[in-house]
């Protein structure tokens, strides 16, 4: 408005027309983007709406996106039908301990790989990198045989030991540490700080975004992991939410609404974490370009 007032009356109409045109094209873009978003997220919306229905209504034709009869009891009954709370607890325990160990040992090792110079360091790092390229399936058999001989199958230890020391965490943290200027660690060394002190007091506080990326990616990967728990955990009392959910379909295959309820509940923790830390997810993926 202020700009308009300063301009001569003769250019005003064209300027306004231009602005209107811009506003219109912006609206069109927003509408198109919303349609795109809706199409991509349609399966989730269907899942959510089905979880509030009766079994009969889930697959009824035509589809009612908003339930005709709201069924709230699914979210109450599911806890009695399957030991879902126990599954959620197991998933949380595994995800938290693996994430903690991975972040701690990963960032510690990354310091050795990026800030301490010693012979053989780069060769060792190459060994880490090389294993990232090897598909996990290619060495799952020796891992399994090892765990069997150590009598660790059907315990959480098998999964924690196999997943907590991944090369991915070291790689991600090292990439970040390399961007921290060398002068900073040199100055701290001259001030008499030991390398352990530099790691704890300087590098760790500086690398909070990378730590957050690694922690979130590891947590979500562990939470969503299916094959690991499927191969190693056979007792129902140890099952994660993914295994429990899969078993649930086998047992109550026609209980569509309840299955959808379980699915929604299994996604909620990931959704909450994702909403809080989405920029760390995106940053972690954009810098490393790799999966955990």
């Amino acid at each position, binding site marked *: 408005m202020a700009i308009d007032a300063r301009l001569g009356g003769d250019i005003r109409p064209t300027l306004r027309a231009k602005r209107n045109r811009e506003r219109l094209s912006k609206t069109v873009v927003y509408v198109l983007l919303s349609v795109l978003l809706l199409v991509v997220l349609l399966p989730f919306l269907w899942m959510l709406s089905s979880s509030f229905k009766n079994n009969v209504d889930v697959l009824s034709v035509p589809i009612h996106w908003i339930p005709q009869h709201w069924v709230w009891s699914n979210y109450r009954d599911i806890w009695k039908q399957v030991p879902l709370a126990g599954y959620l607890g197991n998933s949380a325990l595994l995800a938290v301990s693996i994430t903690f160990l991975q972040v701690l040992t990963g960032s510690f090792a990354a310091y050795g790989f990026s800030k301490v110079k010693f012979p053989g360091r780069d060769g*060792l790092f190459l060994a880490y990198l090389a294993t990232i390229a090897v598909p996990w399936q290619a060495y799952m058999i020796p891992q399994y045989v090892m765990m069997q001989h150590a009598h660790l199958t059907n315990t959480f230890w098998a999964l924690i030991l196999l997943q907590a*020391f991944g090369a991915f965490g070291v790689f991600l943290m090292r990439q970040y540490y390399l961007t921290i200027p060398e002068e900073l660690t040199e100055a701290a060394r001259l001030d008499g700080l030991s390398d352990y002190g530099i790691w704890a007091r300087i590098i760790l506080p500086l690398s909070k975004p990378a730590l957050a990326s690694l922690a979130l990616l590891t947590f979500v990967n562990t939470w969503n992991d299916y094959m690991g728990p499927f191969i190693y955990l056979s007792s129902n009392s140890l099952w994660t939410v993914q295994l429990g959910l899969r078993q649930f379909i086998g047992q109550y295959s026609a209980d569509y609404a309840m299955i959808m309820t379980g699915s929604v509940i299994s996604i909620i923790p990931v959704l909450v974490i994702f909403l809080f830390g989405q920029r760390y997810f995106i940053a972690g993926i954009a810098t490393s370009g790799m999966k955990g």
Partner: protein
Amino acid sequence: MTTTVAHVESGRAERAPARGRVQRRRATLIGWSFILPNFLGFALFTLVPVIAALGLSFMSWDAYNPPKWVGLHNFIRLSQDPMFWAALENTVLYAVGHVPLTLALSLGLALVLNRKLRGIEFFRVAIFFPYISSLVAIAIVWNLLFDPTSGPVNVLLTHLGVHNPPGWTSSTTWALPAVIITSVWKDMGYYMILFLAGLQAIPGELYEAASVDGASAWHKFWNVTVPGLRPTTFFVLVILTVSSFKVFDLIFVMTEGGPGRATLVLSQLIYQDGILNGQFGYSSAISLVLFVMVLLITLFQYRLQNRRQD
């Protein structure tokens, strides 16, 4: 006098490398102390199994008999195993569908979402979400969506005038396309993020210069965006192909390799032969084949990329 000075100087010169050696040893100790906690776990649970897998492929070893060196026997047996060929075929077919579709859609999404708009972050993040949401939940939902008689997908198809909609996961011909569609939907957000990072690395001046030259949007896409994205595209292509060959859990949860063996892939065969049937040697041979294929594809794409740059 002169001799003492020379002596002192040479002594200093000798001490310097000695000090250097001590310092280097100290650095080695410190370096290893940082790496060791992770390295112990990594060496024991990743490095040793990787090397062991290589050796196991040349051995006969099952749950009842001790390991025995058999040379290439496993690979000869492999070449005559119809299950192996079926799994290989399905894995390749899966990759042939999954790679180009995911590449095209994730690039398309990145181009659409690479604009300065208020709230654009929300759209990007939401489209990324399927990638990190629970695999089992996704498999369950898509299985029901693909239900042949009353699933929403076929209801829609019938509505659009398709008289004989496919049986999807219950049909041997349509089960593979069904899992491909699901996995493309799940993965495209991830690769979109990589493409967005690549797009943002292209200098804006290039587009401005092209505009000054009067280039159309189409020309700008082909002459600025495509060349600028080449490193990203190469990177995406490599990890996309590798991940396609490794595919396992989504298919396993959706169809368990069925109906029949219509969606049986190499990873599932390794699991079945190795962990279910305890044929450690034979299944390791299959995993070696998988690894070599992944390696060859990566090298091939790498050479292609280098030739294009020359």
